[in-house]
Structures are given as C-alpha cells and as structure tokens.
C-alpha cells in the first residue's frame, strides 16, 4: 500500500511517496546519498535533474553549480571528490563528449568521495542534435555504467551508485533515456544521508599520470574492471563490493535467452506475455551494463540451457558487443541475434520490441495491431516562440544579406527550425566550421557568416573567437545574446548578470569587451527588436573583409515577461483587414505562431500568444499591422 503522497522533494521521512520524473528520481537518489556538490551544464533531457536539486528554497541550493561547460564541470566534480566529498555531475550524452577528456583520466586517478555522472541519452534525437550511444564511452574510459529500469530503480540505483563508486574507486555513470527522463512515476523515499562535513585534500602519486605511472594506473584500472566483471558476490567480507545491485532475471529453461537492460526489461517481459510466449524465453537484464557481469550472464545461459541469445537494446548494440566477445572467449557455440533485428538507430519502443520478438519466436499472428491509419501525421517542426529575438534576426539576415549566404549554425534556441543555417552539429560548430569554409573560399565565393548563442560562446565558442581573431577569418560572427541558456529552461550564463539565486552577479562577463580582449577588431552591437537597425549593421559589414563580430542582444521574451510589470497600458498588435493584401509575409515567411488564418484565409493575431514584439508590423509591406495601446483590467501584468 502506498503511503500518502508527499509533495516535498526534500522530505527526510523515509518511506514517503513522491511522484517524480525519471530525471528527478535519480536526483532524489543523489540527495539521499549525501551529495555535497551537484554540477551541470544544462542539457535536455536531464536538465530537470539539476533544477529540482537547485530549488532555491531547498537544502541543496548552495551546493548546485551551473558550470561553463561539461569538461570543467567534470573536473570540478572530480576535485571535490578527491577532497572526500560526494558529487553528482549531470549532463546530456553530447555533453559527455565534451567531458570525455577528464573522464578518461578519472579512471586512472580514481576518486575518494563517491562520484556519479548522470547522463541523459536521446535515442530518436527528440531533444538533441544526435543520438550517440554514450554507453560506448565506457569501453575506453572504463567507467562503470548502471541502467535503471523504472522510477524506483532510478532513485535506488543512483543512491547505491555512490557506494559503488567509493568501493571501486571509480566514478559511476547512470544512463537514462530521454523518454524515461521526462516520464513520471511513483517512488518511495529512503533515508537521507548528510553530506561529508569537513574535507581535506592529500597528495597522492596516482594523481600525476605520466610515463610508467600512467601505465601502472591503466593496468590497475583494467584489473578493477575485470574484478567487477567476474564478481560473484561470494567473496569474503573484505573483498565485498558495496553498492552492487542484483541483476534482473526471469530464468527458465528455454531455447531463447533475451538479454536487455534498463527500461526495456519490463517491455520485453510484457511483450512475451502478450505473445503468449513467456515460457519460451528466459530474460536477463544486467543492472551494471559495463562491465557486464559475466558470472551472472553465463549462469543465465547455463540455467536456461538456451541455444540462442537475443539482445534487445537501443542504439549500437553495446551489450551484444561485450557479451559476444565473452562468448567467443569461452568458446561457446550459441546463436547470437540482436542488431540484425532491432535497428541501431532511433528510439526503441514497444512496437519494435514485440514485432522483433514475434518474428523470432514465430508468433507473428499474435501481434497486436492498432488502427490502420490512412491519414498520416505530418512532420511538425519546432519553431521560435512568439517574440523570440532570433526570429527577427534570421528574417533580417535572409532579407538583407540574401539567400546566397553561407550560414554557420550552432546549438541553442537559434538552431530551431526552419534551420536557416547551412550546418548544425555540435557546440561551437557555427564559427569554427565557418573558419574552414571561408579559408577554402578565399573571398571568391558567397559571404560567410556564423551564429553562436551567448551560452554556447562561453561554453566553447570563445576559443574559436580567439582563433578567428588571430587569423582574421573572413566571416561575420553574430553572437545571439538572449541573456540566458533559454533552450533548457533559462539557466543563467556568465553574462546574465544574475546568479541562480537571483542575486546580482558582480562578475558578469561583458561579451563585447570579451570579444575585444580576444583580439576582435570590429565588434558591433545590434538590437533585434529593430529589423531596420539589424539590416543597417549587416549592410555595413557586408563589404568588409576579415573577422567581424556583432552582438545581437535582446533578452529572451519568455524570461522578460516573467518579471512584474506595473504599467497599466499594454501594447497590442492587430491586423487591419482593409489594408491586408494577404501577401502572407507575416504568416508564411515570418511564421510567428501568434499569427493564424481566419475562416476567410486572412492573417489574424492571437492575443493570448502575442507578446507584442512588433516584428510582424515591421515585416508587413502594406502597413496592415498596427500597434494599439489598451489598458489592462488589473492595471498591471496580466
């Protein structure tokens, strides 16, 4: 029976019931484990894991830090751990690319206080520019990976991962797929441990990794992993590894052993039930998916007497890779299936799992079916919010500098569809790739411009700015400064001027001054609220050779609207239908979501969505959109 639901994420009452997202359940585990430091660079789908812990009214507020990028965040967490504290580092899968350099060394140096890295993966690329299988990093960093299967496990396993980290001397990675990160379920709380009080740092030889020391540490790391991979739980107390969680097993004698992990275990079991095939397959799901415990895996093979092993996992086939190698080393003759059935790309859902198993087990006739849809849903791209300064910017860019531009795109809100840029890959791709393109074109091709957001500039872009300034890269770089890391829910950047607690940040970075300090000779500013002003700046720079930067600064409209506004007069925009020629420039070119078409096919403005940025009035060639002032009923912000 479930206890009464609590709404207090930070409750210290064990056994309380909470409703949490997958990401927040993992955070609760870190809170219970006594994490003294939580670091992140904001990234979907795990941003909520940080946000709940950083609640300014909560006990962890001062212990949660947004860090300039994941590389620095990882190092900061490692340093805290080396001084004895428990620490949680939160990042998305592509963020771990950035942190991978220190992650490799952390296996060599080891840790002192428990260190856990919460990674949000994104099979299906629903909230990311890619869907890399981040688990594969463990094959060369040798950091153990845990994959929880449900909300309670996300909490329990994150808490347990701190113990495992300390008993192995290694940072532990928890991987949560995006759909689970955002989903919700109930959890029962455990006891909350206080963070370590006084900490100290002691010099240790193993922290300096050069020459023979590095080789010795590498050997030690491999030995640690082999011990984990072969741990049978029957060793003496002195050899016991704390925090090891039992694998999930539904072992019966069957021709087929399904090996899966994380959220897919329940789906596999349910799919077998639907196919009336529960007796035809054994199921094994390691909790620690790197190193996969081979003692447990081979005992599942022996107990089931299976003739084939089927791997059900998303993306690249990471369990299949580890297990196939172990099967070969052992000299077993057994059929291996998996990535030939379940594709290594895209999200793995119930439909794919049950179809694959049905074909394999000869139960296709029992496949459930849904409606035979004759009308197919049309792809729906995301777009800029009403009032977004990026919408005006890209409108001006296309109108003023023309369609022949080469536009380097970058991560963040400015990357939203319709993807005005010519490329969009990782953080700092905008000006960096543009540097190479402009070098190759040597001034003979179309004008090269690039875009980068303020948060991305701080994250990793500044090195490119230095490079471009020093080499006088022939490009105009637009710094799209909306004052926040808006894409992930408005976390402050070093340039925001406010901290997480809302206090004024006296050390806020002046972006224009920073650019000049990097050696940029031409630094201009423009306000995207004025398309005309933007156009004038673009025209001025169009004929200039060499490297120029334009700081296009206007706060994210969503954030600006959250502040109190006592002005009783509100600005509204309206379409004067007698003047409207239905040219559709506002509807089809500007594509502001606040503009819709009425029954006669004429554009109208939805006041409940419009934030009165005025961009539509500026783009209307017929003067059909007018500004009106209205007095709000409440005399202030609505």
């Amino acid at each position, binding site marked *: 029976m479930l206890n009464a639901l609590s709404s207090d994420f930070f409750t210290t009452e064990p056994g309380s019931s909470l409703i949490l997202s997958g990401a927040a359940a993992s955070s609760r585990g870190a809170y219970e484990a006594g994490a003294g430091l939580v670091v992140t660079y904001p990234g979907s789908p795990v941003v909520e894991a940080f946000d709940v812990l950083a609640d300014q009214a909560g006990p962890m507020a001062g212990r949660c830090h947004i860090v300039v990028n994941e590389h620095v965040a990882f190092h900061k967490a490692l340093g805290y751990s080396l001084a004895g504290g428990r620490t949680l580092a939160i990042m998305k899968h592509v963020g771990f690319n950035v942190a991978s350099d220190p992650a490799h060394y952390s296996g060599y140096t080891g840790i002192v206080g428990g260190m856990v890295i919460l990674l949000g993966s994104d099979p299906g690329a629903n909230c990311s520019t890619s869907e890399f299988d981040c688990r594969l990093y463990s094959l060369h960093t040798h950091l153990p990976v845990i994959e929880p299967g449900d909300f309670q496990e996300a909490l329990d396993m994150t808490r347990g991962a701190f113990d495992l980290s300390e008993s192995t001397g290694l940072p532990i990675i928890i991987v949560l797929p995006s*759909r689970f990160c955002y989903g919700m379920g109930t959890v029962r709380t455990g006891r909350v441990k206080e963070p370590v009080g006084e900490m100290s740092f002691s010099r240790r030889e193993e922290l300096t990794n050069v020459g023979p020391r590095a080789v010795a540490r590498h050997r030690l790391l491999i030995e640690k992993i082999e011990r984990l991979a072969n741990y049978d739980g029957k060793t003496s107390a002195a050899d016991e590894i704390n925090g090891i969680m039992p694998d999930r097993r539904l072992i019966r004698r069957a021709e087929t052993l399904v090996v899966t992990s994380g959220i897919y275990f329940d789906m596999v079991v349910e799919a077998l039930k639907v196919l009336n095939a529960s007796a035809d397959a054994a199921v094994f799901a390691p909790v620690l998916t790197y190193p996969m415990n081979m003692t447990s895996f081979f005992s599942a093979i022996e107990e089931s007497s299976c003739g084939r092993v089927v791997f059900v996992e998303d993306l690249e086939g990471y369990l299949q890779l580890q297990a196939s190698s172990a099967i070969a080393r052992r000299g077993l003759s057994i059929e291996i299936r998996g990535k030939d059935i379940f594709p290594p790309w895209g999200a793995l859902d119930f439909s794919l799992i049950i179809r694959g198993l049905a074909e394999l087990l000869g139960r296709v006739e029992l496949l459930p079916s849904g409606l035979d849809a004759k009308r197919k849903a049309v792809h729906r791209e995301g777009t800029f919010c009403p009032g977004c300064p990026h919408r005006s910017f890209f409108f001006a860019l296309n109108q003023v500098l023309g369609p022949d531009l080469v536009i380097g795109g970058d991560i963040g809100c400015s990357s939203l569809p319709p993807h005005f840029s010519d490329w969009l890959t990782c953080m700092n791709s905008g000006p960096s790739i543009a540097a190479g393109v402009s070098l190759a074109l040597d001034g003979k091709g179309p004008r090269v411009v690039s875009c980068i957001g303020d948060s991305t500039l701080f994250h990793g872009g500044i090195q490119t700015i230095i490079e471009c300034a020093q080499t006088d890269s022939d490009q105009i770089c637009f710094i799209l400064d909306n004052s926040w890391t808006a894409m992930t829910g408005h976390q402050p950047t070093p340039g925001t001027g406010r901290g997480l607690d809302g206090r004024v940040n006296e050390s806020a970075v002046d972006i224009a001054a920073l650019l000049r300090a990097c050696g940029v000779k031409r630094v201009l500013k423009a306000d995207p609220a004025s398309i005309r002003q933007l156009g004038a700046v673009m025209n001025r720079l169009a004929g200039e050779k060499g490297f120029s930067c334009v700081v296009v600064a206007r706060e994210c409209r969503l954030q600006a609207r959250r502040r109190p506004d006592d002005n009783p007069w509100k600005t509204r925009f309206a379409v004067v239908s007698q003047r409207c020629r239905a040219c559709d420039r506002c509807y089809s070119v500007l594509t502001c979501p606040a503009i819709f078409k009425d029954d006669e096919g004429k554009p109208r403005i939805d006041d409940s969505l419009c934030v009165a940025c005025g961009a539509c009035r500026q783009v209307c060639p017929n003067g059909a959109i007018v500004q009106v002032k209205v007095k709000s009923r409440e005399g202030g912000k609505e």
Partner: protein
Amino acid sequence: MIRNLVVVGIGGQGVHFVSTLLRKALGARYGRFTGYDERGGAQRYGPVASVIRFEDSGPEKPGGVMGIDFPDGSADWALGLEASELLRFDHKFSSDTIIVCDSVVVPPTNVRRVDGGYFSADEIERHYRALGCRVDMRDFTGLAERMSGNRLNANLLALGVLLGKMDGALEISDFAGLLDERRLALIGACL
C-alpha cells in the same frame, strides 16, 4: 487491469500540465503508475506527448510487469489538446479507444511556409469515426474563452470531458487537493 492513456498536443499547450495533474490524481488513488513523455517540442510548438499507464485494480491487487510503453491498439483513452497530433498515435488506438479532443488545429510552420494544405478538424473527426472510435471533439478553446476569458483553460474543460468517459477510473474528487475551486469548477463544467 492495466489501462493506457495518451495525452498529446504541441509545445506550449499544457500537455505537461494536464498529464502531471492526471498522474498526481492517479498516484493518490492507485499508488502505482508509469509511462513516458516526449517533450522535445516543449515550448517550441513541436509535438509533445505523455503516455500514462496504471492499474485500476488498485494497490491491493498489484499486477504484473508494466513497462513505460504499451502494445499497439491498447489505448483506452486519448486526450488531444490539438487534434492533428492524435494522428501520430493511431497505431496505439483501436475502435475501443475513447478520444476526447479540442477541435483546434494548428498547422505546423513547415506547412505554413510552403502554403501546403493541412487537416481540418472535421477531417480528423471523420477519420476516427470511420475507424469506429468514440470521438468527442469540441471547441474547448473557444468555450474556455467564453467561460473564463482565458483560452488556456481549454485544457481543464477537455480534462473534465475525459473524466466523464473514464468509467470512474478517475473522478473529479481525485483532483480536489490538486487544484483551487475555480479550476475544479472548470473541470466540472463539462463533466
């Protein structure tokens, strides 16, 4: 018995708000529920969906395994805060699925740019009726504006209609501690 509910809409419409309300009510009543969310389009006018699974037998009769996703054709209910987004989940629906949706249809910006045609509310309603589903499509947005002066309250009105079709699996009293009187009244308005 495991029951499956899908809530769909576009980013900015309140799918997260409505699905969180439903989950809180389910948590208080049944204890156990699960599901997943697709929120890549949240705040960006892209597709957003919540899948909610629960056992209406309640915590005294805990059932078997319940993964975050569910078999095709097994949705008991679907709530569409934007009608055309339902089409993405047709494979999860059967002729037994009860569909409640707002008649508002928002063409994607990729359709707007090329002046492409898009589904009308009538077309979508006919599509589901032809397939035998029980559909309740109403102009909740317009109704909310008339009733409360706020279009965003369409979500609560639609939720009320859904509750009326859940055969008591959830009732308005399950939301009593979750919302103020004014919002509860809006849920009750269409119940």
